[in-house]
């Protein structure tokens, strides 16, 4: 059995940063420079008034590496706060994917039927293709995409994970 200290788990980190040039390069450079994984990364401005952006990173590592990642992120000057949502408590994760499927006949009908089950919306349609828009957690998107493979999947575009704490908890501002 692998000791707990060596088990790698996925963690979702929420990083509040000054929205200034180079801030994303700083964060990404830290991950590549120190050999940390990035499984998904999203970034957008979330507070115009204070000029803040939120970066959501899904990473994986042993508990010691995850602790390091948090500490390393926190010491970057434009970083206001880092929350490890996976550790800190219940939170919601959502991701959006655009999934393009080409096909005809039975397969085309089947893709539409599955899209319906997954509550995916059809956002583009031609005689021999669909583009579905699907929102959910990473697992749901993975499952949907896997089901589309035999039905003519030809292209996928995903946003990466955005996450927020459940309840009234507000993530660190400073």
């Amino acid at each position, binding site marked *: 059995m692998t000791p707990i*200290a060596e088990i790698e788990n996925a963690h979702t980190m929420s990083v509040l940063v*000054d929205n200034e*040039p*180079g801030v994303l*390069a*700083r964060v990404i*450079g830290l991950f590549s*420079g120190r050999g940390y994984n990035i499984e998904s990364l999203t970034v957008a401005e979330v507070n115009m008034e204070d000029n803040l952006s939120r970066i959501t990173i899904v990473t994986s590592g042993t508990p*010691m590496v995850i*602790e*390091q990642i948090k*500490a*390393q992120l*926190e*010491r*970057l*000057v*434009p*970083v*206001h706060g880092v929350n490890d949502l996976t550790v800190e408590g219940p939170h919601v994760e959502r991701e959006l994917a655009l999934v393009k499927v080409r096909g005809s006949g039975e397969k085309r009908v089947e893709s539409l039927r599955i899209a319906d089950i997954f509550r995916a919306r059809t956002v583009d349609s031609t005689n021999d293709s669909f583009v579905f828009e699907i929102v959910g957690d990473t697992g749901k998107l993975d499952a949907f995409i896997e089901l589309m493979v035999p039905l003519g999947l030809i292209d996928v575009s995903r946003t990466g994970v955005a996450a927020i704490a459940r309840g009234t908890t507000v993530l660190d501002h*400073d």
Partner: protein
Amino acid sequence: MSKNQLSGSQILLKALSDQGVDVVFGYPGGAVLPIYDELFKQNKIRHILVRQEGGAVHAAEGYARSTGKVGVVLVTSGPGATNAVTGLLDAMMDSVPLVCICGQVPTHLIGNDAFQEADTTGITRPCTKHNYLAKDVDQLARQIHEAFHVAKSGRPGPVVIDLPKDVMMAQADYLPPAKVKHKSYNPPVKGDLGKIREAVKIMAAAKKPLIYAGGGVINSGTAASQLLTQLVQTTDFPCTLTLMGLGALPASDKHFLGMVGMHGTYESNMAMHDCDVMVCIGARFDDRVTGRIDAFAPNSTKIHIDIDPSSINKNVRVDLGIVGDVGHVLEDMIKLWKSGQNRADEKAMKSWWKTIDKWRERKSLSYDREASIIKPQYAIERLYELTKKRDEVYITTEVGQHQMWAAQHFHFDRPSRWMTSGGLGTMGYGLPSAMGVQIAHPKALVVDIAGEASILMNIQEMSTLVQYNLPVKVFILNNQYMGMVRQWQELLHGGRYSESYMEALPDFVKLAEAFGGVGLRATKKEHLDDVINEMVACDRPVIVDIAVDPKENCYPMIPSGAAHNEMIFGPGDDADTSVSDEGMVLV
């Protein structure tokens, strides 16, 4: 435009002056001409013209480390900035507070592959604590003040301000430092009192304790070194220091076990291996210190005090991490220790000291004192003996065997007297660094203990020494080899000296003279003292070329991939010196 507006260059100089800067190390070029023009018009800030930008950064490091102030560098765009990169990373690794101002091509040319353009913020991002591209003259004063705040607070480090030429010439209002608020970067200095209390409890219960302190103590200020000494003396705990920490506890204190790590003393490393409580203070469990991680102090409870949260649990998992400035934490720790009337178990301590004294008897730093040839250790020992009565002696080093011998055989009773490139291991650090030290301490004796290989990496700075009449002494232990490379080739590569012999060495005496300095040479043991005395007495820059035993190696040593209790002692020691496969890949 209001009347009181200043140009970007004027703002820069005013901000530097308001930050207490009195000297800048730099080199002009096209993209910084407006700043140099302003420098010309004023007398407050002194500019030291180096001979290569790398020298400017190391000089600023020497200045910063010997004064506790922020060192300031001014270089031009492109090659000026890229030449500074090694020094910046050196300062990053060794936590030296620097502000480096780089010229940049005008904003409208950025990204156009303009003449002498480099993506300086991109290049320096991973080798600085923070960097700025100052595109807006209205923000310039704030950014400069913030740069100083970032450089010196928390764990110190280098900060780059990349300043486009058009911004130097644009006009804006000046903002004094008092008006600048730092939004996100405010590292805590006080340690958690509950945790310090817990640490004291663990320490009081220790039977085989060890204090392992590093450069963080020195960075925290003179008071922190005094507090460390106080803690050591109050608890009667043995104490070892890292390469960066030498001087934090007086070398003459009986609790001092010598340096720890790869070339540390036997007693330090054995105590590290066998201790039951380790108190790490301002050190970072560097691989040169820990040796093989899975065999590192296997039976100890580890307490780690550091201002940088990312240093805790980075290499070695500790049982209790305390984030805070070591000076503050030590103060609280001593208070709690005393008020709780704590005392370590007397019987256990007695037996622990007895064990340590046994290890001391091994005399791991001994060498062949009787040899007729000058042993490098002997040369350093004589340098120490002949200068120890002087009030102010500062030692810098280059990197390699001579550096380790200096650390082993020169003894420091005060902090900030020892400047060496520890983390990055930058050959060529010592001469420019000594230059910076001498600028800060004009009356002091400043000696760069060097090797004949390292010194050639920044030898051009001899010219700077002569220009400013800085009487730095370059003390070359000339063994005609890149000694440490050769030592590893002997240990790991069957003695095949691939490219480690220094052929076609210059005549260092003539070289010194060619620069306008003084050249001295010692080839015989009996002349050594005279040469050292002559060097010390000279009020000009001196290069001393000392012909030392070319075959001598640096011991004791923990071979790479080995544990602390697997040290080797050099000739006369029949221990197994073979290195494991895992050790072979380590550096």
